């Protein structure tokens, strides 16, 4: 059966689908953060993006410092393992070098926004925020009456990114995407979007994916473009492929404190390299090897095959 081939390269995917002024979600909760795609957006000089990410991470620091982002929609404003995002803080505390609009939720608020967006719902209810100042800070957090007589409940509006970008372990050429380890709200963030770009560690044959259909987080109908991009999540990690570069995260804090240092870093590590392959080369084989993991394979399960069909095929 012929299937549409969605494989492209990252430069083409970003050029084709990410335009100035768009609402763009780059998701991955501490795991599978699509750094390579974020760097390509910086490299292509996108402007005025509304950047959506539950935990902005230092990827937000980088994209904001690079001037790509005019608004941040998020639920946590620090780097994953502690440490401030100083570019974000400079913008918010001192409008330095210029202001940054922020739309703020809690984690589950963001998850619910993605769920509403993914489901075509006008809102999503959650049992948070009663007594909180968050609804005063963000008037998009509202209340509805319970038609069954219970107390009012807070709701959040759908988040519908123009583009959602994710990283995953593998996909087939038609765009069936499989991931494992922490999967966060990626399925929701993708279904919420108009366009979905997925970078993967490897493009695999269709029969690999089809040997385990429950592992598919995004069927091909939810995916616009697939890019093979090994190491695309560094300095975050890809379960089973390479570990988080914790040293990198620690090194970022002093860089982040000094805007000039951030710009210098971007010049060297983003603009100074054409793509992720060159970035990894520059990082060096030794450092990369240090992030390697020992194998820990899942035990296979049996999906079975109708015996008549199996006999006919043999």
């Amino acid at each position, binding site marked *: *059966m*012929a*299937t*549409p081939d969605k494989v492209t390269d990252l430069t083409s995917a970003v050029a084709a689908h990410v335009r100035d002024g768009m609402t763009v979600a780059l998701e991955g909760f501490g795991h599978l953060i699509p750094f390579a795609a974020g760097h390509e957006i910086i490299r292509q000089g996108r402007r005025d993006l509304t950047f959506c990410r539950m935990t902005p991470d230092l990827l937000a620091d980088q994209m904001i410092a690079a001037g790509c982002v005019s608004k941040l929609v998020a639920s946590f404003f620090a780097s994953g393992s502690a440490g401030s995002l100083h570019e974000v803080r400079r913008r918010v505390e001192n409008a330095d070098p210029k202001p940054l609009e922020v739309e703020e939720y809690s984690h589950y608020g963001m998850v619910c926004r993605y*769920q509403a967006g*993914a*489901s*075509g*719902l006008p809102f999503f209810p959650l049992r948070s925020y009663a007594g909180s100042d968050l609804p005063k800070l963000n008037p998009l957090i509202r209340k509805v009456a319970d038609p069954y007589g219970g107390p009012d409940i807070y709701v959040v509006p759908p988040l519908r990114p123009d583009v959602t970008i994710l990283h995953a372990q593998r996909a*087939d050429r*038609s765009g*069936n995407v499989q991931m494992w380890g922490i999967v966060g709200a990626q*399925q*929701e963030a993708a*279904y919420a979007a108009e366009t979905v770009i997925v970078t993967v560690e490897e493009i695999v044959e*269709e029969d690999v*994916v*089809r040997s385990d*259909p*429950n592992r*598919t987080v*995004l*069927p*091909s*109908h*939810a995916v616009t473009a697939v890019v093979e991009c090994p190491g695309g999540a560094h300095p975050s990690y890809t379960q089973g492929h390479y570990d988080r570069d914790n040293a990198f995260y620690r090194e970022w804090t002093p860089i982040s404190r000094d805007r000039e240092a951030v710009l210098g870093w971007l010049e060297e590590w983003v603009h100074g390299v054409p793509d992720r392959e060159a970035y990894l080369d520059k990082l060096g084989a030794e450092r990369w090897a240090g992030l390697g993991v020992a194998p820990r394979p899942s035990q296979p399960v049996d*999906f*079975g*095959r*109708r015996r*008549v*069909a*199996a006999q*006919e*095929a043999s």
Partner: protein
Amino acid sequence: MSTPLSDVAPASTEFLAAVAARQLVGKHRVFAGVGLPTLAVDLARRTVNPDVELVYESGICGAQPEGLAEGIADSVLVSGAAAVLSMPALFGYVLQRGHVDVGFLGAAQVDRWGSLNTSFIGDWDKPTVRLPGAGGAAEIMPNAGECVVVLRRHDPGALPAELDFCTSPSPVRAHQEDPRMVPPGHGVSTVITPMAVLRRPDKLGELEISEVHPGLTVDDVRAATGWDIPVAEDVRETDRPTVEEVRLLRDEIDTVRLYLR
């Protein structure tokens, strides 16, 4: 190229399945039910649309069954599928978010607006027949791009002026309840019966006779319909199945005549 045509009866399963299969030209994703839709979808993949993605309310996307499925939850649809999603994801993210182009539905009754009754014949409280109920049809109707209904009967009982119960409403009924609640989908676009193909070109409009099966007249169809059904300007005779389509249905798709009658 002259394609040899079959002379199977217009009321036969083969005829209905072949007509149904042709509705899938150019469609990407089809929400397929059990029975005649199973045959139609399988035939479409072997003829007019090899790329059509089969989606089932059981959560299966991109099925490539090695055998004929007995039901929408058959293991043969799971083995080798591209994805199996949870039902919240399937109904919420795939269907309600608008990823399904065509839904295949059955019904006991269809009215002029393409609203469906699959719940009760007779009184709701003490029905003459308790039908299967809504299933996923109440979701497929508003959310699929369009719906194709296949009926096994064409008479004023199956196509009445008034439904005994409206399980899966046309956008017309949604509009009557609240104009702002009109769903994204077109509702029923096509009804395939043993006598004719009825179409509803306007999302807020009525069904009309679009094709009449060989050997029948427009008047035959109108007489068998429970309301004064309009006739399309370009009404024509339904194309017969080809000999090859019938062969595929009988010799490759449903060799045990599970759905062929």
